[in-house]
């Protein structure tokens, strides 16, 4: 990512120069080719075939249908569809975008606040930093299970706090079913992802030279200004990285938590909280529409690539080390 903009020597020359290093990475390259590249190409090809239950044994020899499934999804995007198969995908797309947006906004904002707090000197800082890390060592499946208990309408911790302890609301909220379920999923995801964002930002804050702050203080900058003009700009590279990670996790994510939190074994979180990966999984493995599933996955990948393109344009300058400030 931090590629140098200087003209590069030819690949061949570099390989000769660092032949030992290339020998060391060769096994990895071969393994990645076998493990990543071949299945990816196979998946792309699969999305052009009519692989379903009855043609599954034919696998790659199944009837070629070209862009049929792509056309189906894209036409439905433009004109809508009666079939719950397609409308379910469109609905899941909307939910996924909303989910990705809110998880990122919340994770980055809360992560920044936490990192700023943990960057100050206080008595139990070591313990606080360790505690903040805790949710991150909890596997996502366990997170889902824990939150299933937290969100229970009767006896769940969330309603216990909101109704009995704080008295903010009178009636317990139904979280796991109905319109609130998307937020139930977002909050669980944020809880799990927050430590990572916090640690990354904290690590970056700690390498900001103190003399910058001292100089600013001498010039009469207040706390907010110091944050606005020193901390934030210097955190930009790490924020950019976190946004990238967050969006990838958002678009491809939610499955593990949804499976455990909403249960049912199908990861069907209802129309309010159904996300793309669970939806594609359902279409592919429960309905045996392998070609359709592959095509939807490719479209999801394209959606992500579009985002990465935009991301790169927006953050290009902050990623280039020379333009870092």
């Amino acid at each position, binding site marked *: 990512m931090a590629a140098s903009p200087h003209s590069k020597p030819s690949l061949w020359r570099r390989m000769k120069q660092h032949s030992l290093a290339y020998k060391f990475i060769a096994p990895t390259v071969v393994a990645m080719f076998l493990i990543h590249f071949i299945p990816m190409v196979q998946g792309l090809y699969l999305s052009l075939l009519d692989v379903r239950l009855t043609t599954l*044994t034919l696998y790659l020899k199944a009837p070629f249908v070209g862009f049929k499934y792509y056309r189906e999804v894209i036409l439905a995007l433009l004109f809508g569809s009666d079939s*719950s198969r397609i409308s379910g995908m469109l609905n899941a797309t909307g939910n996924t975008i909303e989910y990705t947006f809110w998880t990122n906004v919340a994770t980055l904002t809360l992560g920044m606040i936490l990192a700023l707090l943990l960057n100050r000197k206080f008595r139990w800082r070591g313990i606080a930093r360790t505690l903040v890390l805790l949710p991150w060592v909890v596997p996502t499946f366990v997170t889902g299970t824990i939150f299933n208990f937290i969100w229970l309408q*009767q006896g769940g911790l969330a309603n216990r706090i909101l109704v009995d302890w704080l008295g903010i609301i009178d009636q317990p909220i139904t979280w796991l*079913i109905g319109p609130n379920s998307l937020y139930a999923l977002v909050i669980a995801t944020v809880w799990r992802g927050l430590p990572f964002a916090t640690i990354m930002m904290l690590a970056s804050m700690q390498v*900001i030279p103190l003399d910058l702050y001292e100089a600013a203080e001498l010039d009469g900058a207040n706390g907010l200004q110091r944050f606005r003009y020193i901390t934030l700009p210097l955190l930009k590279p790490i924020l950019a990285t976190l946004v990238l990670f967050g969006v990838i996790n958002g678009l491809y994510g939610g499955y593990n938590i949804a499976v455990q939190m*909403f249960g*049912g*074994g199908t990861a*069907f979180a209802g129309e309010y909280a159904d996300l793309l990966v669970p939806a594609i999984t359902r279409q592919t493995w429960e309905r045996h529409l392998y070609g359709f599933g592959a095509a939807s996955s490719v479209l999801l990948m394209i959606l992500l690539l579009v985002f990465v393109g935009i991301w790169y344009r927006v953050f290009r300058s902050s990623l280039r080390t020379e333009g*870092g400030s």
Partner: protein
Amino acid sequence: MLRSMQRSFRGSLALLLCLTLLLSACGANETGSTATSATGGNAAQAEPTKAPANTEAPAATAAPAATEAPTEAPDSNTAAVTLKLWHMPNGAAPAEAMQKEIDAFEAANPGIKVEPEMLDWGAAFQRIQTAVQGGEGPCVVQLGTTWNPTFAAMGGLRPFSDAEITELGGSDSFVDASWETTQLIGQPGAFSIPWFADVRALAYRADLLEQAGLKPEEAFKDWDSFEQTLKTIQEQNPDVAGIAFPGRNDWNVWQNSSMWIWNAGGELLSNDSEAAFNSDKAIAGVTEFAKLYGEKMTITNTLELNSSQVDAAFGDGRTFSIITGPWLISNARTPEADGGWANRTVADNLAYAQFPAGPGGQYTFVGGSNLAILKSCPNPEEAFKLVKFLTANESQLRYTQNIGMLPATKTAQSDPQIASDPLYSVFIAAAANGKTSASIAEWGQIESVLNEQLGSLWDDVAGTDGVITSDKVKERLDKAATTVDELLGN
């Protein structure tokens, strides 16, 4: 300065990479920990028997999963033939229950050695699918009843010959609804043999019913009397809800609704080839079911529960009745120390009733599991011997009682051990009016569509905070019908 920042950025990138590696290590761990968390969740709910289910029905939250490994290393002594058997975690102590049958079989058949492997319900379908495709796998395999047509259509199952079926006692010796699940419509013969049946009924508290001065035959007679019963019980016992059933968070979504569809006079499919679950009658049935929540006859949070949580609510005495299966019998007879309910009020007063009749009749869902022999099995004759042993009377009686299910053969069902048991007998009567899914290859897909729309209907119900209209039900079911017809090629 720039240099230091460049270094720091590289430093954080390196850190990021390390963390990513760590993260992926965590990710790798997670697969393993599913098992622990699932079993943990199970223990937390103090569920001795997990709805071990009929179809591909593991509530993911409670599947006792840590079970992939075969319990014993294969014994490489004199056995001439080794049969691999794949089975699912049936009952509270699945490995032990299975081993008892294997020991008995091996004692009766000295030349054959059985090597069992237990598959998690959640993973079983794909494992079997891979075995069918790759041509390598076990000889004998347990199938959820709705899976039979799928694997039969894929050409992976060795059909049972007429002579073999006669040797097993003929198709008439099995419960009718169970035998239906061995077929693939459009092809002759049976592709699997019924092993055990999972029949649904209402479990209720006999003491509360008696206190209310009601007789079971009147209280559960039809929809009206049933609703009246629930209301009466709730009035008399403010802390006890009328009924509990799972909403969307469950594998039994379509099974639970299907009873209301059938009893309203509706069907799931017409001629096994076209969606019929959106007929006016079927809509009336589903609306009637949804009404129970809207008119506050249920536990308030019933829609977010899964089957084992519903069972637990009944065990704790929070609800008068639930939609469930025969496995509660073993709960009631298991001591509390082992996670059962023995000595609780509910255990002493556990009673079952058939689903209240609707305008279209009185039916119940019959699921369960079948045994199939894979085509790739090199020793089909020995495999048949195992299937014969497991479906014979001795094993049927012992195994089904160990796992809390109903035998699949009529002979075993009429055995005094089962037939004269007041709890089991309700299921035997209900099974006579049993209905099940269509024996078509596409059933698994249809089920998935139904679960999606019926599940979303529970979201609608929860969202409206009141009575759901039949228009909304129609909208959902019409949507499902369009998709199902598309899957069926209409």
